[in-house]
């Protein structure tokens, strides 16, 4: 029961931070708040027993995303968002989508139950087979690298493609800067 209560408190704090992200206009404030958001959601993942995911989310979300966002703010000189009137249509769309999803959620099994269908077939199978077949005690690692290795290969391909895309987008810029500097001389 204590686990569920800790989970509840952390999720409420997460909702508060989300409201802050929506309302803040200073972009640096938004970056710092998103870092806090990543730390909190990594703590929630710790409570939800996802240790490896928590480690990855903390390093990627709170570390790398913050640095990437700061670099973008440096390159675009964007400090503050423009003031704006809250448009009503997106608000209604968001609230409507949320209400429909809540209606769909009612039929889901309750939190933390061991007898829900998700935990019946594949998960226990991996838990039973991992130690004798691969010899790795960490089941997440064995599934990620052995049973679903091709998934991980596809993920690496995606990251590689994104890196190539970033390089191609930003390389042209550096050339332009060089020509500008030569023109100044």
């Amino acid at each position, binding site marked *: 029961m204590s686990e569920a209560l800790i989970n509840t408190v952390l999720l409420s704090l997460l909702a508060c931070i989300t409201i802050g992200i929506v309302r803040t206009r200073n972009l640096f404030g938004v970056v*710092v708040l998103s870092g*806090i958001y990543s730390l*909190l959601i990594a703590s929630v993942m710790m*409570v939800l027993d996802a*240790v490896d995911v928590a*480690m990855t989310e903390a390093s990627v979300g*709170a*570390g790398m995303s*913050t640095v990437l966002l700061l670099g973008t703010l440096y390159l675009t000189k964007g400090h503050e968002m423009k003031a704006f009137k809250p448009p009503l249509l997106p608000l209604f769309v968001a609230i409507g989508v949320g209400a429909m999803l809540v209606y769909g959620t009612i039929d889901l099994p309750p939190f933390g139950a061991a007898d829900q269908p998700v935990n019946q077939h594949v998960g226990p199978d991996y838990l039973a087979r991992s130690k004798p077949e691969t010899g790795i005690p960490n089941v997440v690692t064995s599934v990620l690298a052995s049973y679903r290795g091709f998934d991980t290969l596809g993920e690496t391909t995606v990251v590689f493609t994104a890196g190539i895309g970033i390089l191609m987008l930003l390389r042209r810029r550096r050339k332009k800067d060089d020509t500008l500097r030569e023109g100044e001389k």
Partner: protein
Amino acid sequence: MFILAMIAVLVALSLAVFRALAGPNVFDRLLAANFIGTLAIMLLAVLGFLNGRPEFLDVGLVYAFLNITGTYAVLKFFRYGALGGEAPPNEEDENRKGFSGVHKT
């Protein structure tokens, strides 16, 4: 006994989140973020003892390194206006000020 420590950590976390939301400028938010990082480490240490499986403190070590690295990245950006390269450490340059939103021009 660990439940009491957990309650203290959660109360401190709530207060720090309040400061991060209400903080008048970026540096208050940053101070709260640093404190929240420390509190996340304490939370997962206490949680390990509470659940009877305190082996996952490695995650806490990762958090500690990331916390200090992220804070330094943001602060270096605020002070020098760049993340790397040959940024001159000139603190008197007025153009570089105003990241915190204190100076409304």
